[in-house]
């Protein structure tokens, strides 16, 4: 393997890593806000991909143009899921963690089944788009434009998130996360903050969905492929840490690419999880999680 091939693999890994980070950050955000792991996160991604596909087919516009619409739609989906399901799951006094896990897990199965019923299990893909199939060649290194776009969108989303945390709403989020009871005293509606938090989480994974739809196949089970990666990314970066999700996403992308080079490619998931277990050994709450 030449140096050029090595750089190619690392560059591909980096770009995919940024996209993994964007997929994972919504999950991390929701967890950080209210200690709930959303097991339907991969399904949110799948809904966003189908929504992008459907809108592109219907309007004949480019996936990039319809992206804001999909993100808006996903915000509503996220907020609705909180209001209709999670809010009730959180009311239980005993085994709260289990109830939350099973309610979101059940939701995942329901969404998958619904997608298979309504959209059929056929594999879809967006055939023509501005970026789809185009590649930037830099001295023998091929960087696909959809992935470059994905990487840039991911960085922009993380920048936007760090700005939000400085606004009044960001402070309300932070306060609600610190003490759910106390915020009520200063007039913050806990349910409203949580609903917006879920909306934001779903909107972020929705944004990732609009990027993936350009270059990945769309299928009712596509969420499972990326879901596992999202969970290990959040755990590696530290539950609830937005910055941790960014760093961990990039690490996962790179480790995956490097493992596939050194070991048989079928072992590449093993590399990621071996790294995670090593991190657990030294920092059980993840790289940037609160100890």
């Amino acid at each position, binding site marked *: *393997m*030449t140096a050029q*091939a090595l750089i*190619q*693999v690392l560059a*591909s*890994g980096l770009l*995919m890593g940024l996209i*993994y980070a964007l997929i994972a950050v919504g999950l991390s955000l929701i967890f950080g806000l209210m200690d709930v792991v959303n097991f339907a996160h991969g399904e949110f991604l799948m809904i966003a991909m189908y929504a992008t596909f459907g809108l592109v087919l219907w309007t004949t516009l480019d996936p990039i143009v319809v992206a804001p619409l999909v993100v808006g739609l996903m915000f509503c989906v996220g907020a609705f899921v909180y209001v209709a399901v999670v809010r009730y799951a959180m009311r239980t006094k005993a085994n709260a963690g289990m109830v939350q896990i099973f309610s979101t897990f059940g939701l995942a199965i329901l969404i*998958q*089944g619904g997608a*298979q019923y309504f959209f*059929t*299990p*056929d*594999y*879809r*893909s967006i*055939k023509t788009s501005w970026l789809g*199939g185009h*590649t930037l*060649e830099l001295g023998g290194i*091929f960087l*696909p434009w*959809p*992935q470059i776009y994905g990487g840039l969108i991911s960085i922009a989303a993380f920048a936007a998130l760090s700005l939000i945390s400085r606004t009044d709403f960001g402070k309300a989020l932070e306060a609600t996360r610190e003490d759910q009871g106390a915020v009520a005293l200063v007039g913050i509606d806990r349910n409203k903050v949580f609903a917006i938090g879920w909306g934001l989480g779903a909107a972020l994974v929705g944004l990732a969905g609009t990027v993936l739809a350009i*270059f*990945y*196949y769309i*299928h*009712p*089970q596509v969420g*499972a*492929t*990326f879901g596992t*990666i999202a969970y290990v990314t959040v755990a590696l970066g530290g539950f609830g840490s937005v910055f941790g999700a960014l760093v961990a996403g990039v690490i996962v992308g790179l480790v*995956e*690419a*490097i493992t*596939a*080079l050194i070991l*048989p*490619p*079928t*072992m*590449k*998931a093993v590399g990621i999880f071996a790294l995670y277990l090593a991190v657990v050994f030294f920092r059980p709450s993840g790289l940037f999680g609160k100890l």
Partner: protein
Amino acid sequence: MNRRELLLAASALPLVGLAGSASRAFAQGAPEVVIGVLYAMSGPSAQVGIDARHAFETAAEIINGSFDFDMPTAKAAGLQGLGGAKVRLVYADHQSDPQKGRAEAERLITQDKVTALIGCYQSAVSSTVSAVAERYGVPFLCADSSSPSLQRKKLKFFFRPAAQDEMFSAAMFDFFDAQKKKGKKIESVGLFYEDTIFGVDSSNVQRKLAAERGYKIAADIKYKSNSPSLSAEVQQLKSADPDVLMPSTYTTDAILLVKTMAELGYKPRNLVAQASGFSEQVTFDAVGDKLIGAISRASFSLDLAAKRPFIGKVNEMYKARSSRDLNDNSSRELMGLIILADAIDRAKATDGAKIRDALVATDIPGTRTIMPWARVHFNEEGQNPDASPVLLQYTGSKFVTIFPEDVAIAAAIWPMNG
């Protein structure tokens, strides 16, 4: 009624339902042969299962109705050996999981009392299902799984009318040899295969054949199926740059592989696929523009309809259900059920051992099938040794038969990307 009583009453309900349906069946007195069909109806390969269902329903229509096709069981309505009994299909969803396949096979045999089983697409699932069928003495017709290892267990109740990967791969290397004789350059091959029994078995055969016939293996890559990214794998293929890329992949990975190759600027000089993902219409719908000149092994070609017009009619019946043409998989499934029904018809019984004897005695000339096969009969391993495979090349709009030469309708475009 307290909660416990309610639960008890609820659990008894299905029993009442069962008793009801059983008495209905007796009341009608219509003889029926129940066949268990095992496919993934959900999960990443669900579309294959849904297409399979359409293929089996078409086959059942042919068996139960009366059609002027020169195929076994077509002319008479129902199975004459069993007084015109109709075939009824019971479906089970194995979700591509060998363990679920095992459990579902057991359920079909013990609860639905099926006469025979048919399935399962994924070789890994056919492996567990064939073991269950053997234990209960129920014939298992392996319609479309191609791993050679399935027949090596010397099971008594395992029957495969279609070719397996040794036969398919041998056809590929025969084709390479023929191309070489014509002065085309083929020195190295690149193996790229998924990590379940299908991919691994396929690669084992191809590795062995390459060594025997003097082709260098430039790349030998086993990858994780349903991966989010195949960039690193494709980079290795690109670095190795074999004369022929030989993928053994299911549909999801086939689409991702082709997309990733295009993104990384890798145009394989030739691509000869172990069908599967590369025989699915959806793959060509998604990335067909990048696959012009790709070759896949196949058990079926619509070109044959020119010689046997009933193939075209059967295809129309299937298309009315599924809105797509018969392909490599659905044709084998359809034909498989007809071969199984023909054996049950000749056995004149629904007893497993008698059907097995009838399957052993099967001898159908290839011209009475929709396949390019020379003949249907089974050797001591339950394999049809005369299920002659073909190679098809994608021209951008359709597939044409290019090998073997006696059935070819066009010369191969070689190399595919010059």
